[in-house]
C-alpha cells in the first residue's frame, strides 16, 4: 500500500528514519519537512572542529542530495506552525498544507535562554545550529576575552575550541561541578583541571546577577559581587525538547513527547524520535530523554522500522561522548541508579573509568582520558550492560587486565 509518510524535523533522527523506511518500503512517499534550509547535518562538530576550522560546512552533511534523490526521499525547507492530528494535516506559515498517513516528529531540542533585560537579547549567543556556529566563528575572530555561561558539555567544548584559538576564556557555572550531576565529580574535576592547564578560568557555584553593556563590551556581576569584564558572551545552559507546536493538542507530553519502546506516541500513526522524545527503555524499565548522536541515529532507525511496519523494540544502551582539548569523555548506560561504584585507573593519560553497578551488574559507566584511551572499555561496558552480565569486579578495577576477556567467547 502506498502511504504518505511525513517526517517533521530534518535533523539526525529524521534522516536516519527516512532512509530506514525506504529500506523496508519502496512504495510510500517519504517527505522530510525541515525549517533549516540545509540538508540534515551533524551537530557535534559545531562546537569542536567547525569552530576550529578543521571541518567545513560541506563535511557536516550526513548525505548528499544525490543519495536522497536516489532513494526517492523528498526534503522540503519549510517551517510547520500548526498540527491537526485528527485530520492528519500539518500547516506551514506560508499556508501550505501537508497530509500524512504516518507522521514522525523529530523536531529535536532547543537551547534554554537566559532571562535577562530585553535590550541584551541580541547580545548573548547560543549554539544549536550551523547558522549560529557560523556567526560565533565570525564574531570571535575579533574578540579576545570570551565568557561562557554554563559549564555543560556544549559550553565546555566551545571553551576548549576558543582556547585553542588563543582566546582568553572564562566559564561560569552555577553548580558545584562541571557537566552536571550525571558525570561523577572525580571525572568533572579531571576535565576542569585540563581546562585550567590550558589557561581557561572556571568559576563554580556562582550565579549571574546582572549583565551591563559598556562601550560595546560587557560587565557581568556575579552573586558574590565580583565583576567580570568580557567582550563576548555565549550561553550554554541546557536545552528543552521542541514541543511548543503540540502544547494545545492531545499528544501526550512530559519532558518531551512520551513514546513507548516502539517510538509510538499517544496518537495512532504518530511517532517521535531523537532529542524530542521521552521514550520507554525496556532494559531500564523507565522513560528517559537523551540528547546524543548515537541515540538520534539509532532511535531514528528504530522509528523508521516501526513506521514501515517492521515492529522493533528500542533497546539501545545509551552512549554519548564529548571532546575537549586532548580529552575524550564517554558515558554509557545510566549512572544515577547504583549501589556500588568501581574505579578503573587513576591517570588521565591511560584513562579513568567509573562503573556504576546495581546488584553486581553494570548499569552504566563514565570515563575520560587522552583521546582513544577509554573508548574500548566503555564500548565493552555497553555490551556487558546490554547482556545483564554479573561481572568480575577484580577485572573491572584492574587496568592491567584487558576487559576484552569479559566479552570474548
Amino acid at each position, binding site marked *: 500500500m502506498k502511504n504518505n509518510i511525513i517526517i517533521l524535523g530534518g535533523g539526525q533522527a529524521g534522516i536516519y528514519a527516512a532512509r530506514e523506511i525506504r529500506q523496508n518500503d519502496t512504495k510510500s512517499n517519504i517527505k522530510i519537512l525541515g525549517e533549516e534550509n540545509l540538508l540534515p547535518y*551533524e551537530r557535534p562538530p559545531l562546537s569542536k*572542529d567547525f569552530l576550529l576550522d578543521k571541518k567545513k560546512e560541506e563535511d557536516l552533511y*550526513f548525505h548528499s542530495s544525490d543519495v536522497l534523490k536516489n532513494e526517492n526521499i523528498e526534503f522540503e525547507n519549510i517551517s510547520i506552525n500548526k498540527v491537526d492530528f485528527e485530520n492528519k494535516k500539518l500547516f506551514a506559515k506560508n499556508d501550505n498544507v501537508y497530509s500524512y498517513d504516518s507522521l514522525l516528529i523529530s523536531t529535536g531540542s532547543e537551547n534554554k535562554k537566559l532571562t535577562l533585560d530585553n535590550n541584551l537579547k541580541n547580545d548573548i549567543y547560543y549554539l544549536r545550529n550551523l547558522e549560529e556556529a557560523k556567526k560565533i566563528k565570525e564574531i570571535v575572530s575579533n574578540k579576545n576575552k570570551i565568557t561562557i555561561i554554563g559549564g555543560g558539555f556544549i559550553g565546555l567544548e566551545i571553551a576548549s575550541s576558543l582556547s585553542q584559538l588563543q582566546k582568553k576564556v572564562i566559564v561560569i557555572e552555577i553548580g558545584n561541578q562541571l557537566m552536571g550531576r550525571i558525570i561523577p565529580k572525580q571525572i568533572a574535576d579531571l576535565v576542569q583541571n585540563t581546562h585550567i592547564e590550558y589557561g581557561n578560568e572556571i568559576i563554580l557555584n556562582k550565579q549571574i546577577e546582572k549583565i551591563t553593556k559598556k562601550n560595546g563590551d560587557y560587565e557581568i556581576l556575579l552573586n558574590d559581587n565580583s565583576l567580570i569584564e568580557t567582550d563576548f558572551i555565549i550561553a550554554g545552559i541546557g536545552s528543552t525538547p521542541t514541543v511548543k507546536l503540540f502544547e494545545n493538542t492531545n499528544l501526550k507530553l512530559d519532558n518531551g513527547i512520551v513514546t513507548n519502546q516502539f517510538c509510538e506516541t499517544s496518537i495512532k500513526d504518530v511517532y517521535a524520535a531523537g532529542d524530542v522524545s521521552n521514550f520507554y527503555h525496556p532494559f531500564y524499565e523507565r522513560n528517559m530523554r537523551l540528547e546524543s*548522536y*548515537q541515540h538520534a*541515529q539509532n532511535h531514528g532507525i528504530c522509528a523508521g522500522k516501526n513506521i514501515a511496519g517492521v515492529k522493533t523494540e528500542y533497546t539501545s544502551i545509551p*552512549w554519548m*561522548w564529548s*571532546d575537549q582539548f586532548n580529552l*575524550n569523555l564517554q558515558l554509557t548506560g545510566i549512572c544515577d541508579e547504583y549501589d556500588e561504584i568501581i574505579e578503573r585507573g587513576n591517570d588521565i593519560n591511560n584513562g579513568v573509568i567509573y562503573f556504576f553497578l546495581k546488584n553486581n551488574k553494570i548499569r552504566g559507566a563514565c570515563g575520560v582520558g587522552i*583521546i*582513544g*584511551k*577509554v*573508548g*574500548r572499555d566503555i*564500548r*565493552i561496558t555497553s555490551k556487558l550492560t546490554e547482556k545483564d552480565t554479573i561481572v568480575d569486579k577484580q577485572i573491572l578495577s584492574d587496568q592491567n587486565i584487558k576487559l*576484552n576477556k569479559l*566479552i*570474548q567467547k
Partner: protein
Amino acid sequence: MSEENWIEVGSTDSIEEEDLIRFDHQDKTFCVYKLTDGFYATDGICTHEAVHLEDGLVMDDEIECPMHQGIFNIKSGEALSPPACEDLKTYPVKVDNDKIFIKID
C-alpha cells in the same frame, strides 16, 4: 610484486587472537590484526577523524573506533557504521617462518 615492499611487522605470537597491534613504518601507522582465520592489516588511523585505531575494539571481523564508535570491516576496510563513512585502506599480509609481513604500496 617486488619483494622489497613486504615489510616485517613482528612475530605471529606478538598479537593475541581477536586483537591487534599498531605498527609504524616511516611516517605511516598501520594496524595488524589476528582474527580466527589469519592475519590482516589496515591503515592505523580512523577515516573519520585522526584517531589511532590501535585502541579500538576488535570483534569478529570488525574494528570499532575508540572515539565515536565508527566500525570498519577489517578484511575489506568497508565503513560499516557512522560516523565513519569513508572506507579504511587494507593491505596484503603474509606469514613466513612465524613472522608477519605486510605489503605497503
